[in-house]
């Protein structure tokens, strides 16, 4: 047990990889075995990740489960892993959603089952790896690897213009990432110049002294990498295509986990590395976030495709998270981190329901549905709960995060917060309009007459998410109490006196004193 806990992060990274290798040896005709075994293995992975939660010490900001080995000493690259209160929950979200996506695909994925489950498990390795890496090079590798399985998942098992969507996703994020890499390497070299040591260790890189002008340039480089992932307006146009054409599992992982990396990147890298630039650029980024909130909501209202609507709603929701993070109050950052989970849970669930509707009717057009409530009461109830969670109804998870973001941001960014708050009206409009047209009213399309309610497998798929919605809504303390110390440390880290000194320099025009 001691060994298990000590190397738990490595186990979490490599267990899915080992599982994928194991599955390579299974004949691709045994689709049943491939499906059940991959599901079982991802469940084991999820259970492993629960140990993280159990053994996590809530009242410290310090990295836990740390593993540190030399990797490429001449470059200063190390195999350095560790988690804090933020990455803890993102890992749990990743392992849970991977498990859920695998069960959800039994009906949807009919071809190339072997390739699919292997890619999903590889993707899990890369996602977990990205969240636990405290070495910039290691982080970057995992980050880029992640694109490949997702590219294939969209391109192979997608619908419609799937190849276009996959290529767009790939190129969009890749070009962002290259800018990010440039930024990282520049900081790496700067750190070498200042200390004489090569290191990719993020904790050491935090201490790099960077003049404010350069900080801003580097911040913009990192920003491009992360903003595309979030996606922040106006870098969002890959998302509706990718989400809409991806298979259910792809959409769930994309919305549930991949979008979180942008925020995580800002939290772990861009902001603490470049705090002065953050202070200078935060208002501009918040403006983009708030535009995203309103714009995403407005465009959602007139969507005709169910999945495209959910995709645009993500643009809106991620805008709230950007607002909370860059408003830089402890309350709002707490809210943003919690909202990362909430968005993964509720949007993940929404995509699962969109998938169930599509599997039964082979349409995603909102106008084609109607009157399903009569045929499928269980689906209606659970779908409604997810919709309500998404629009931030109190008692469900989304409310807690959204409220903390708004009340925390209000003091520093009063007007922008007010505009963001108005966004919640439109969230109610697009979601309830969609829900009414899809589920309520009378059946007009004869195809809907034979609509079956959810089966046991499908209930098992969404139930964990539904329970989490209520749990976080009624009792968010187990989450907040672990997030809070990390966030408080984050706030203190970015508001050290250096920053203020830099800002004074900028304001007085003394650039190189």
């Amino acid at each position: 047990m001691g060994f298990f806990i000590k190397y738990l992060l490595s186990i979490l990274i490599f267990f899915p990889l080992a599982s994928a290798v194991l599955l390579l040896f299974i004949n691709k005709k045994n689709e049943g075995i491939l499906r059940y075994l991959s599901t079982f293995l991802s469940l084991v992975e999820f259970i492993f990740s629960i140990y993280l939660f159990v053994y996590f010490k809530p009242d410290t900001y310090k990295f836990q489960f740390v593993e540190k080995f030399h990797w490429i000493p001449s470059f200063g690259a190390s195999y350095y892993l560790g988690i804090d209160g933020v990455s803890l929950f993102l890992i749990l979200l990743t392992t849970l959603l991977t498990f859920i996506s695998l069960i959800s695909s039994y009906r949807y994925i009919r071809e190339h089952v072997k390739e699919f489950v292997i890619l999903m498990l590889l993707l899990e390795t890369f996602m977990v790896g990205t969240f636990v890496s405290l070495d910039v090079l290691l982080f970057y590798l995992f980050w880029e690897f992640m694109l490949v399985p997702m590219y294939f998942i969209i391109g192979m098992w997608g619908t419609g213009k799937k190849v276009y969507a996959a290529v767009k996703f790939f190129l969009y994020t890749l070009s962002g990432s290259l800018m990010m890499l440039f930024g990282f390497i520049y900081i790496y070299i700067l750190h070498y110049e200042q200390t004489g040591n090569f290191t990719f260790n993020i904790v050491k890189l935090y201490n790099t002294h960077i003049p404010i002008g350069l900080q801003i340039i580097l911040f913009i480089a990192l920003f491009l990498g992360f903003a595309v992932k979030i996606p922040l307006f106006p870098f969002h146009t890959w998302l509706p295509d990718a989400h809409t054409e991806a298979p259910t599992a792809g959409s769930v992982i994309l919305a549930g986990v991949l979008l979180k990396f942008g925020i995580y990147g800002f939290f772990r890298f861009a902001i603490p590395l470049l705090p002065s630039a953050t202070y200078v650029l935060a208002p501009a980024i918040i403006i983009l976030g708030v535009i995203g909130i309103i714009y995403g909501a407005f465009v959602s209202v007139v969507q005709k495709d169910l999945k495209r609507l959910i995709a645009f709603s993500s643009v809106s929701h991620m805008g709230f998270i950007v607002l909370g993070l860059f408003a830089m109050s402890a309350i709002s950052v707490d809210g943003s981190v919690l909202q990362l989970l909430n968005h993964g849970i509720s949007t993940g669930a929404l995509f699962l329901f969109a998938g169930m509707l599509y599997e039964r009717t082979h349409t995603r057009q909102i106008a084609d549905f109607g009157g399903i409530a009569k045929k499928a009461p269980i689906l209606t109830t659970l779908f409604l709960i997810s919709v309500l969670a998404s629009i931030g109804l109190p008692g469900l998870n989304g409310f807690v995060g959204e409220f903390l973001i708004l009340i925390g941001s209000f003091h520093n960014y009063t007007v922008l917060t007010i505009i963001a708050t108005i966004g919640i009206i439109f969230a109610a409009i697009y979601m309830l309009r969609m829900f009414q047209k899809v589920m309520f009213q009378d059946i007009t399309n004869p195809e809907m007459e034979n609509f079956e309610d959810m089966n046991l497998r499908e209930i098992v798929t969404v139930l964990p998410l539904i329970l989490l919605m209520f749990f976080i809504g009624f009792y968010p303390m187990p989450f907040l109490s672990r997030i809070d110390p990390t966030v408080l440390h984050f706030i203190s880290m970015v508001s050290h006196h250096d920053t203020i000194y830099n800002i004074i320099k900028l304001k007085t025009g003394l650039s190189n004193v």
Partner: protein
Amino acid sequence: MDYKVLITWLIPLLPLSGWLLWGLFGKYFKGYSGYFASLFVAASFILSVILFIIVSYSHGFTSTLYPWIHAANFKVGISAVIDRLSVVMLVMVTGVSTIVHVYSIGYMKGDKGFSRYFSFLNLFVFSMIMLVISNNLLLLYVFWEAVGFCSYILIGFWYEKKSASDAGKKAFIVNRVGDVGFAIGIFLLFATTGTLNYEAVFKMIPMIPVFTTTVIALLLFVGAIGKSAQLPLHIWLPDAMEGPTPVSALIHAATMVTAGIYMIARFHIIFSYSPVASEVVLTIGTLSAFFAAFIALTQFDIKRIIAYSTISQLGYMFMAVGIGSYTAGIFHLISHAIFKGLLFLTAGSVMHALAGELDLRKMGGLYSKMKVTAITFIVGALALSGIPPFSGFFSKDAILADTYNKGFYFAWVIGELAAFMTAFYIFRLIFLAFFGKSNLDSKVHAHESSKMMTIPLIIMASLAVIVGFLGVPPFNTSIFYNFLHVDFKNAYNFSPFVENAPWYLLSLVSVLAGLSGIFAAYLLYIRKVVMPEWLKSAFKPIYALSYNKLYVDEIYDFLIIKPLFVLFNFLWKIVDVSVIDGAVNGVASSFAFFSVKVKKIQNGMLMSYILTLSIGVAALLFYYFIR
């Protein structure tokens, strides 16, 4: 655990467990879920009465169930404040809920969503209870939205009907508009005082600038305008009549819509320290009281008439809290809950008898066919018209007398005019529905409703007679005033009470206003001295204004909704697809030239990609181990 604490938390938890039970296992309870749901709520009622007695003989207290959100310096618990105001509200909410639950067993009998109905009704009762016992603004806001959700789901209960699901959605969205104001008010309050706990907030209010207090109060009031359906956000309430009638009685007359008045009474410190905000409350209340009554004059749908009447009566309550007469506002809230609940339940009984018919023009002569319903309706109508000794007389008169004696003469005149119209429209309804010749559809056989429905009517009617006497003796000496005023003693007295006129003179004016309204309706619809048709053509523009509900919906549609949708489509089709995505694809296609050259690497063989990828990972690992 202290027994008071236990009782306090059992009151909401009983209906909460009911929600889960009938919601999850409804099909196993079959038709009994209605009885069980009623029992749960009745138990909450009894506990509320016990709590009422405890608080009357000792003093209030607060209790925290568990810490809910602790993030940095933002700390909020699931906590209750039990004082005289909250126990009065508790008894009213659970009492009316019990009666409506029992009535619903008869009304919803045989509906295929029977258990679903009671599950949501229980959820509503839970939310409403929590709303009135919350001890901080966040929790209040939570249940403020939660009752709105219950309202949404119950208005759209018959979801197959487009009009019903439209109405539910409209209620939710219009309420959200108000809620946004409310939320921003909470943010500002927190930014100013650093807390959301009532007691802590109230201590700080006298110290913060009046301007800030005014802004906070006005923002909170925006929420009240939405929830309590005041002008100009009243448009959802008449449509909400699409829901089952007991829901209209409970949610859209007795409880949820009064949350705005409760909120202002609860925050009397904030509102009384801002005379400007109070003035706005008074103005909106007065306008709503008048214009809603004006619209009700010409409508033909019986539920919608009663709905407009509710908007109008809520307007009176806002007048009361707007002039600082908090006890008078709450007194009218209680008395209105009873007589308006009664009116809705009797309207439901009429609908039930006439197979869902709501149009006054297709009724008439029902008195002889359903005497209990008719008599209880008339009792409710007399109470609404402010005729002594029915409860509405005491409670409405207390408000109007206070407006006069606190020097708001204009509001008083408007209030009396509205009282005249009130008596007119409700007796117009009575004369058209219950008297005169029958215009019933030949297929409909009107009959008295079952005992399950009439007994609740009789109980409510008796209460409508009794409750008013809590309002004697007049002014600041009444039983109700003496009981409740303790909670409001810290309010800033911005409009001192001066006895400008003795109570009997003021009462006389009110009673005359009511009686003349009834008499006018009698002349028009029974004696037919003047044909209503003639009046209609003689005052055509005014009639059209009233009949078309001041064209508010049409104005919103033209000024807000249509332009917004044009904008939405523009943003999507032009900005998103053409401008932003067009730019992205433009950049991409300029690279297409180069891509031809690297095409060979992408041979489309998935396994070869996986292989390459794995080799890469393996190579890195290998390096790590041998380094």
